[in-house]
């Protein structure tokens, strides 16, 4: 389990090579990459700036990884989230999960993204021709996260 919060971009091939290097029981790798879209609510985006809460971010991502690890058979997982100022089509986030079984890798990767979207303390501010504005949270993200709730 590994977590990084960084301003630098990441290279998927290199990250996956590192993730796989120590394991030989991997049958499946599922990865998610989130990118800056060129449009939001009809306006062209020139830049997107990500702020976060150092300390809580790492704790929150680590808690999400641990929860995924307790629910599914995961060999390795990696979360990289960028902060700072990005342009359209820049990579924002990488979640990679390896597992002996593909269904577990898919579920764990999607779970991590749905929780990250609603629990991890990141905030986006976008610059458009209309000026700067904070991105609003989406209720669809809350609904996506709520799907995973377990009844005790």
């Amino acid at each position: 389990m590994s977590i990084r919060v960084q301003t630098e971009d990441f290279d998927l091939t290199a990250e996956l090579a590192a993730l796989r290097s120590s394991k030989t029981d991997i049958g499946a790798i599922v990865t998610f990459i989130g990118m800056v879209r060129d449009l939001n609510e009809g306006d062209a985006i020139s830049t997107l700036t990500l702020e976060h809460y150092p300390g809580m971010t790492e704790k929150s991502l680590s808690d999400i990884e641990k929860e995924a690890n307790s629910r599914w058979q995961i060999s390795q997982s990696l979360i990289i989230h960028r902060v700072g100022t990005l342009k359209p089509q820049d990579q924002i986030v990488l979640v990679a999960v390896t597992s002996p079984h593909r269904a577990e890798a898919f579920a764990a990767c999607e779970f991590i993204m749905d929780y990250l979207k609603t629990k991890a303390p990141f905030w986006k501010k976008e610059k458009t021709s209309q000026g700067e504005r904070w991105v609003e949270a989406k209720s669809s993200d809350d609904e996506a996260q709520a799907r995973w709730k377990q009844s005790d």
Partner: protein
Amino acid sequence: MNIKILYFARIKESVNYSTEDILLPHNVKTITDLKSYLAQRGDVWTDLFTTQQTIRAAINHELVDNTAIINDGDEVAFFPPVTGG
């Protein structure tokens, strides 16, 4: 008790503070109490902490609800709903 308060994103810009160390009176025990206490500062503080605006709170890096108890030395944070990923 003494606590540290951090503000993020839209809230940080509204209050124009990112962090403050504060000595709380004895009757401020929960997040709800702290919000009411901060609202007394007037202006933007009143707007932020008394309206229906959604504000998330964390204590020591853990998301909490309004009933959570604050202890001496805690790091409390206020921020809008998160929008990462």
